[in-house]
C-alpha cells in the first residue's frame, strides 16, 4: 500500500516563519545552526503527541484511514563547512573565565552548537577537572530569558552603530573636558584584555581602571606584600601537605582554585596498600563547609573565636621560634598540641584561611613561614594572578560618583549593585554619573540601572585568553556564532578606539608577539597560534621563585585591626560563596539552582543555618524567617555541626534582576557586611515569619546504624586493609543463589567510587544533568521530593550530634547484575544487557513505577509531569533556543516514563564504534561517563571488569571495596572504597 505525502507551500513557509520568529536574526543569514538531518530532539514533541493520541484512539485513526505522519524536513547546508561532519561531535579547547573563576575546558560541539563542557586534560592546573559551575555554564549560553539580546539605551534597543556614536561622542567630550571616567572590572586574568585596556587608557588618559571583586582574595596579596614585600598570591600545594589546618577556608568548594585544590587534596587523601599514608586535615570554622565536612577533625567555632585560635596558634609558634607573641588572647581551644604538630610536620604542613582580611592573612602567612611551609607546601614560583581587587579605589570611586565628580563609569563583568553592601548608595552614585554603561552578558542589577547596556558575548561566543597562574596561559575561542546581537567587550573598546572590531587578530598578534618568544616548541607564528589554539593551553616557564623579604615588624602594625576583629558577640554570622551560586552571577542557571548544596541538600534557596542548640536557645524552628541586622531576610535551617551562636548564610542568592530562575530566591547576604569581611556580629535579629518550606533532596541524615558508608581510620587500615569493611567478607561467604552466575561474554562495565577521594563537590551531578538531558523541575517539585538527577550525593552524619562527622556518597544506578527492578517490569522496558548494563528503554516504558519501588537504592526517576517542555518547571528546554543545549544522543523523556543512569551508554557506544572502525580493541579509560570525566579529584573510575588489566578490575579486588546493600545480593556493578579518615590519635 503506497501512501503519498504532499509538500505544500504552507509547510515551507510556516517553517520559515517559525525560524524568523524564534531564532535570532543572525541565524538565518549565517545558517550556522541549521536543523540537520539527524537532529531530531530539537523538534520532537509534536510527533510524540501525535503517536500518543494515535495510540489512545487508534480506532478513530482507522476510521480516518489517512493517519498521516507529519512531514519532516531534511535541510542540508548550502555550503557545508569542511571541518564539520553532520551528526558527529567535535571538541574545541576553550577557557571558562569569569572573574576569579577559571577553568580550561574542552567544549563538545555538535552540529554547530556547544552542548557539553569538559575539562582540558592538557592543563596542569585542572588536569581535566571541572566544577559544577563550569559544567553548567553551557546552559547560560542559551539563557533566552536573561541574556541581553541587543544594545540598549535606557531600556530601549538601539543599533550598535548608534550606540557607538553616542559613546564615542560622550567619551570624547569627557576627555576633552578632562573629566574622570572609570572602568570597573573584576580581576582581569586576561593579559590581552589588560593590554587592550592599557591602550584604551592611553587614548583616554582620564580613564581609571578599578578592579573590584565581589568575593575578594586581595587580602592574601596584600598580606604578602606587607609581610614579604611581594604582592603575590602563592600557590597552595595541598598535595605536599601532610598536615592541613584550615581556618574557615572552603578550599575544596569555592576558595581560590577549588578544582585544582580538590585534585591535589584528593591525591594526598587517597590510600592504597602500597601507600597507606594520607594527609591529616583539621578545620576550624563557624559554618559547616564542604571542606569542613571532609576534614579529619573539625572544630566548630565562632568567627571571632576562630581568629583568636589563629592568633594564639601564632603566639605559640612564635614562642617556639623565639619570637614575640602577637597579642594575648585566650581562646576556648587549646592550640598547644596543634602547634606541636605543626612543628613536627615542619615543611609538610599548611595553614590556610578563607578570610578576606589582610590582617588575618598576614597571621596565616606568618604561621606558614614559622612552620616552614614556604617553598614546600606553599609555592611562590607560580603565583596566582587572581585577587587584584582594590576595595579602597572602588570606595573612592563611589564617593566621587555620588558627588557627581565622575563623567563616565563602565561596568565589565561586575554587578556591584547586587554585590555591594550599600545598594542605595551605589545606585545613587551611578545615577549621579554622566554616562553609565554596562557590558553585562545576562541581566543584572547594575546593568538595569545603567543608561547603556552594551552586551558582551557569552564566553562560548568570545575570543580571549587567561593567565590564571604565572606562566600558565590558556585561550578562549568562540564555539558558536553569536546568538544575539551582542558584541564582545574587547571589540567595543577596539571600535571606540577607532580600530577595526577584530579582537581575534588583536589576540593573535599579542600572543605571537609576547608569548611566542617565551616558548620554543613552535617557532613558526602561524603554527604556534594554530597548535596552541588547538591545545587550549600554553605553559611557559615560570618567572622563578619570588624573593620573599620577611618583614616581621609588619605584624605589629595590624594589632589594632585584629583587636577590633576579635570582638565577638553572642550571635555572629558567616557568609560564604555558595558552591553552586558563587558570587551570584550565574544565579539564573536552573541547573545550578537545582543543584542541592552537598552539605545541607537544599536547593533553590539560601538560608541562615544555625545549630540545633542555638536554635533552641533563640527559640527558632526550621522554616522561620528572620531578619538579620535589619538587612537580610532569610529562612532558618537547623544544621548540626555549626558553631554555637553562629548563623551561616550563603552568598549569591536574593537576586532581583537576574531572570526567572534567579529572582526572589533567598536573601542577598552581600548586604550583611559593610566592610565586606564576610563575617561579623549579629547586632539585631527579628523573626518576621515562619513556615518556609525548603526544597531539600534529602531529609534524613542518619545511617540508622546501617553499613551504608563504611568508614575506618588510617591506623586501623594500616593494620588491616579491610578495616571497616568486615561485613564484606561475611556477605561474600553467605552469598547463595539458585540461579547460575550471570555471564558477560564481551564487556562488563563497572564503576568504582573512592569515598576517600570524593569531596562531595557535586560536579558530577551537573555533568550528568548536562550530558543526559535531565530536566529541571523547579522548587515546588523538589519539595515534593521528585528531583530528577540521575546521580546524587548522599550525605550522612555520624557520631556526635553537635559536631557530627559528615560522609558523602555519590549514588547513581548500581547496575546490579541481579537487578530487582528488571524482574518486575511487566513490559520488558528494563532488562539486562550483555555488557552488564541495567538498560532502560524509555519508549517501551508505560510507567507502572514498580521498578522505582523495587529499587533498594532508589535511583530511578519518574517523569511526573512533562518536565522537559513545560515552562512552569523553570526549565530552559521549554524554548527553542534553550533546547539547543540538549544532547542529541540522548532521548528527551516524555512524561510518564521512568529514567535513570545509563552509565552514559551513548558514550560507550561511541567509543566502541570508534574502536570497531579503527579495527582495534577498546582501551581502558577510553570510555568515561560524564560523572567520571568531570570529577576534579578522579574519585570515580569506570572500566571493563572483563579486562583484568583495567583499573576497575584492580580496584574491585581491593580489600576496601564493598557494594552498597550487598546483603540483598543484587550484585551491583558499582563499588565503593571505604572511607578512611586520619584523625589525631
Amino acid at each position: 500500500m503506497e501512501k503519498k505525502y504532499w509538500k505544500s507551500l504552507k509547510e515551507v513557509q510556516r517553517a520559515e516563519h517559525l525560524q524568523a520568529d524564534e531564532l535570532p536574526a543572525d541565524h538565518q543569514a549565517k545558517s550556522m545552526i541549521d536543523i540537520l538531518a539527524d537532529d531530531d530532539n530539537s523538534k520532537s514533541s509534536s510527533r510524540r503527541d501525535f503517536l500518543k493520541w494515535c495510540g489512545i484512539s487508534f480506532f478513530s485513526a482507522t476510521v480516518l484511514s489517512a493517519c498521516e505522519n507529519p512531514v519532516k524536513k531534511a535541510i542540508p547546508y548550502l555550503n557545508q563547512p569542511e571541518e564539520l561532519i553532520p551528526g558527529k561531535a567535535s571538541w574545541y579547547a576553550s577557557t571558562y573565565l569569569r572573574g576569579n573563576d577559571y577553568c580550561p575546558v574542552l567544549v563538545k560541539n555538535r552540529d554547530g552548537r556547544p552542548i557539553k563542557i569538559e575539562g582540558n586534560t592538557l592543563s596542569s592546573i585542572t588536569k581535566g577537572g571541572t566544577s559544577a559551575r563550569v559544567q553548567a555554564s553551557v546552559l547560560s549560553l542559551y539563557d533566552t530569558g536573561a541574556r541581553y539580546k541587543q544594545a540598549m539605551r535606557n531600556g530601549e534597543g538601539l543599533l550598535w552603530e548608534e550606540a557607538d556614536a553616542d559613546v564615542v561622542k560622550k567619551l570624547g567630550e569627557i576627555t576633552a573636558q578632562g573629566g574622570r571616567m572609570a572602568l570597573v572590572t573584576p580581576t582581569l586574568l586576561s593579559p590581552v584584555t589588560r593590554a587592550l585596556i592599557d591602550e584604551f587608557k592611553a587614548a583616554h588618559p582620564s580613564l581609571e581602571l578599578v578592579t573590584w571583586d565581589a568575593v575578594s582574595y586581595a587580602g592574601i596579596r596584600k598580606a604578602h606584600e606587607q609581610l614579604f614585600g611581594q604582592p603575590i598570591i602563592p600557590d597552595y600545594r595541598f598535595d605536599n601537605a601532610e598536615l592541613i589546618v584550615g581556618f574557615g577556608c572552603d578550599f575544596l568548594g569555592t576558595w581560590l582554585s577549588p578544582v585544582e585544590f580538590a585534585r591535589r587534596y584528593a591525591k594526598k587523601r587517597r590510600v592504597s596498600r602500597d601507600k597507606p599514608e594520607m594527609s591529616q586535615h583539621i578545620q576550624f570554622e563557624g559554618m559547616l563547609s564542604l571542606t569542613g565536612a571532609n576534614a579529619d577533625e573539625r572544630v566548630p567555632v565562632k568567627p571571632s573565636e576562630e581568629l583568636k585560635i589563629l592568633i594564639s596558634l601564632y603566639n605559640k609558634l612564635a614562642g617556639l621560634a623565639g619570637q614575640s607573641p602577637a597579642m594575648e588572647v585566650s581562646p576556648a581551644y587549646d592550640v598547644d598540641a596543634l602547634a606541636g604538630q605543626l612543628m613536627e610536620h615542619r615543611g609538610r604542613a599548611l595553614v590556610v584561611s578563607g578570610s578576606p582580611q589582610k590582617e588575618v592573612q598576614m597571621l596565616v602567612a606568618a604561621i606558614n613561614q614559622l612552620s616552614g611551609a614556604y617553598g614546600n607546601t606553599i609555592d611562590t614560583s607560580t603565583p596566582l594572578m587572581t585577587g587584584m581587587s582594590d576595595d579602597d579605589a572602588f570606595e573612592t570611586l563611589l564617593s566621587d560618583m555620588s558627588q557627581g565628580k565622575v563623567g563616565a563609569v563602565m561596568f565589565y563583568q561586575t554587578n556591584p549593585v547586587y554585590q555591594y553592601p550599600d545598594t542605595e548608595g551605589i545606585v545613587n552614585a551611578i545615577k549621579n554619573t554622566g554616562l553609565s554603561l554596562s557590558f553585562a552578558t545576562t541581566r543584572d542589577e547594575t546593568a538595569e540601572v545603567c543608561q547603556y547596556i552594551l552586551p558582551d558575548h557569552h564566553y562560548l561566543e568570545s575570543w580571549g585568553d587567561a593567565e590564571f597562574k604565572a606562566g600558565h596561559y590558556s585561550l578562549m575561542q568562540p564555539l558558536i556564532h553569536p546568538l544575539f546581537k551582542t558584541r564582545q567587550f574587547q571589540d567595543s573598546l577596539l571600535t571606540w578606539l577607532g580600530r577595526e572590531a577584530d579582537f581575534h587578530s588583536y589576540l593573535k598578534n599579542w600572543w605571537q608577539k609576547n608569548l611566542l618568544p617565551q616558548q620554543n616548541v613552535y617557532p613558526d607564528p602561524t603554527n604556534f597560534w594554530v597548535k596552541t589554539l588547538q591545545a587550549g593551553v600554553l605553559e611557559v616557564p615560570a618567572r622563578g621563585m619570588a624573593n620573599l623579604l620577611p618583614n616581621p615588624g609588619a605584624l605589629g602594625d595590624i594589632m589594632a585591626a585584629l583587636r577590633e576583629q576579635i570582638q565577638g558577640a553572642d550571635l555572629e554570622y558567616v557568609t560564604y560563596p555558595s558552591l553552586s551560586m558563587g558570587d551570584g552571577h550565574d544565579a539564573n542557571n536552573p541547573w545550578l539552582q537545582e543543584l542541592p548544596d552537598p552539605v545541607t541538600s537544599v536547593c533553590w534557596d539560601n538560608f541562615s543555618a544555625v545549630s540545633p542548640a542555638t536554635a533552641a536557645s533563640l527559640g527558632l524552628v526550621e522554616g522561620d524567617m528572620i531578619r538579620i541586622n535589619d538587612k537580610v531576610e532569610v529562612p532558618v535551617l537547623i544544621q548540626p555541626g555549626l558553631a554555637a551562636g553562629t548563623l551561616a548564610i550563603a552568598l549569591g542568592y536574593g537576586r532581583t534582576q537576574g531572570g526567572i530562575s534567579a529572582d526572589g530566591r533567598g536573601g542577598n547576604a552581600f548586604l550583611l557586611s559593610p566592610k565586606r569581611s564576610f563575617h561579623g556580629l549579629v547586632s539585631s535579629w527579628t523573626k518576621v515569619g515562619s513556615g518556609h518550606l525548603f526544597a531539600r533532596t534529602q531529609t534524613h541524615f542518619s545511617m540508622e546504624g546501617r553499613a551504608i558508608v563504611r568508614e575506618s581510620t588510617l591506623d586501623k587500615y594500616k593494620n588491616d586493609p579491610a578495616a571497616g569493611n568486615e561485613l564484606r567478607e561475611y556477605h561474600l561467604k553467605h552469598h547463595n543463589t539458585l540461579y547460575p552466575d550471570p555471564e558477560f561474554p564481551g564487556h562488563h562495565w563497572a564503576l568504582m567510587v573512592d569515598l576517600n577521594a570524593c569531596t562531595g563537590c557535586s560536579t558530577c551531578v551537573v555533568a550528568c544533568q548536562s550530558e543526559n538531558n535531565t530536566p529541571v523541575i523547579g522548587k515546588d517539585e523538589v519539595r515534593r521530593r521528585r528531583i530528577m538527577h540521575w546521580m546524587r550525593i548522599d550525605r550522612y552524619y555520624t557520631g556526635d550530634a553537635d559536631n557530627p562527622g559528615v560522609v558523602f556518597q555519590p549514588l547513581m544506578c548500581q547496575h546490579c547484575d541481579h537487578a530487582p527492578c528488571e524482574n518486575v517490569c511487566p513490559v520488558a522496558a528494563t532488562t539486562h544487557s550483555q555488557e552488564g548494563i541495567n538498560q532502560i528503554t524509555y519508549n517501551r516504558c508505560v510507567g507502572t513505577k514498580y521498578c522505582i519501588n523495587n529499587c533498594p537504592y532508589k535511583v530511578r526517576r519518574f517523569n511526573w509531569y512533562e518536565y522537559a517542555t513545560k515552562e512552569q518547571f523553570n526549565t530552559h528546554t521549554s524554548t527553542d533556543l534553550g533546547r539547543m543545549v540538549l544532547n542529541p544522543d540522548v532521548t528527551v523523556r516524555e512524561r510518564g516514563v521512568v529514567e535513570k543512569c545509563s552509565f552514559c551508554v551513548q558514550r560507550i557506544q561511541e567509543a566502541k564504534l570508534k574502536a570497531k572502525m579503527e579495527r582495534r580493541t577498546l582501551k581502558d579509560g577510553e570510555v568515561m561517563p560524564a560523572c567520571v570525566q568531570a570529577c576534579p579529584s578522579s574519585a570515580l573510575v569506570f572500566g571493563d571488569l572483563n579486562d583484568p588489566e583495567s583499573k576497575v578490575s584492580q580496584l574491585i579486588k581491593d580489600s576496601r571495596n564493598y557494594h552498597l546493600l550487598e546483603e540483598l545480593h543484587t550484585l551491583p556493578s558499582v563499588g565503593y572504597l571505604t572511607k578512611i579518615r586520619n584523625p589525631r590519635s
Partner: protein
Amino acid sequence: MLNNKIRYALVKGNKTYGQITDELLANVEQKPPLWWYGAMTIGTILLAIGAWAVYMSLSQGLGTWGLTNSVAWGWDIINFVWWIGIGHAGTAFSIFFLVFRQKWAGSINRAAEAMTVFAVVCAAMFPLLHMGRPWLAFYIAPYPNTRLLWLNFNSPLFWDVLAITTYLITSIMLWYMGMVPDLATIAQRTKNKVGKFLYGMFSMGWNGSLYSYNRYETLMKILGGLAAPLVISVHTIVALDFAVSVMPGWHTTILPPYFFVGAIFSGFAMVLTIMILLRKAFKLTDYITEKHLDNIAQVLKFGSLIIGLAYVTELFTAWYSGVEYEIFTFFRARFTGNYSVQFWVMFTFNAIIPQLFWFKKARRNLVILFIVSIIINIGMWFERYIILVSTLAQDYLPSSWTPYHPTMVDIGIYLGTFGLFTCGMMMFIRYIPIIAINEVKPIARAEKLRKLKEQNHEH
C-alpha cells in the same frame, strides 16, 4: 463446613413460589423508593469528582498525585488492593454455595457477586490510572507485533493484570450465568416493552427446561470450581506484587496467605455492610435472616483471628530474621515510629474489635454488626496503607526516605470509585433481583418440607 444439614430457617415464612417471586422481584418491578434516588445522586456526584480527578491525572500527569521518588505507589495501589479485597467475597460466596453446597449462601451470593464485579471494576481502574502512560497500556498484552517484542512473564505486575482480568471475567460469567433464569422470569412478568426486550435479549432464550437445568447446574459447578482457586490466587498474586520485591516489609513469605485471609475478611465485612443495608431497604428480612448475618459474623470473627495472627507472625519473623531493615520497618516504622498511628488503627480495627463477635448478642445486633463491618473496612484500608507507605517511605537508604501525603486528586479518584461502586450497585438493585430467585426457591421448598416434617413429628 461441608455438611448439608439444615439446622435453621434460611427462608422464613411459609411462602409459595408465586409469593417468593413477587417479593423478590419487587425491587425490579416497583418504582424505586426515594432513598434510591438519593443514593444515585450521591453516587453521581462522587463519580463526577472522580471524573475530575481522572481528568487531572490524565491531562497533567501523575505529578498531580502525592507520589514521590521513593513512594511511587500510594493511594492508588492501596485503593486497588482494598477494592480487590472487597471483591473477594462474591466469588467466595459462590463457591460456598456451588461447590460446598452451603445452602445458606444462596440468598446472599447474587448481591455478593454483584459487589465483586463492581469492586473489581473499581480496583481495575487503578492499575490503569497509575501508569505514567496509560495510552500505552496495551503494551502489557502479549500479542504479536512488529516490534517482535513480547513482555516480561517474570513480572508480578503482569501476573496481576492477568489475574484481575481472569477474575473479572470469571466473576462476570458466574454472576451473569447465575442470573439467566431470573432474567427470563422478569422478561415474562414485565409489562414494559423495552424491559421485556432487554431482559429477553439477555436471558438468551432460556426456557426453563429440566435438561437445560441439568447442564446449567453442571456449568455453574464448573465455573464455581474454576473460580475457587481463583479466589485464593487473585489476592495471592496481588500479594506477590509485594512479596516478590526486595523491600523490607514486603519481602515476606507470609504475605500471600495473609493477603488472602485479609481479602476474605474485608470482602465479608463489605458483604455484611451491604446486606444489612439491603435487608433494611427492601425489607428482605425473610430471605436475609439473622442467621445469615450471624454466619457472616462468625466468619469475620474467624478471619479476624487469623489476621491478628498474621500481624503477630510478621512481627515475629521480622524479629527472628535479625535483618536490620525488617526490624526497622516492623518495629521502628510501624510499631512505634512515624506510622504507629496507622499501625495501631489497623491492629485494633482488624484484630481486636471483631472479637466482639464472640458474643451472640453482638452478632444478632444489627447496629453493632453494621458498625463493626464498617470498622473492619476502614481497618483493612489502613492495613494496605501500612504495607505500602511505611515500607516505601522508609526503606533501605535513609537518604531517600520521603514523607508521603496524598493530594486532592488522589482522594478524588478514591471517591470516584465509591461513586462508581454506588452507582453500579444502585443500577443492580434497580434492574436485577437482588436475591437469586431460582436458587432461593428450592431452599424455600426444603424449608417447607422440614417444617411439615417437624409438624408431623410433633403430632
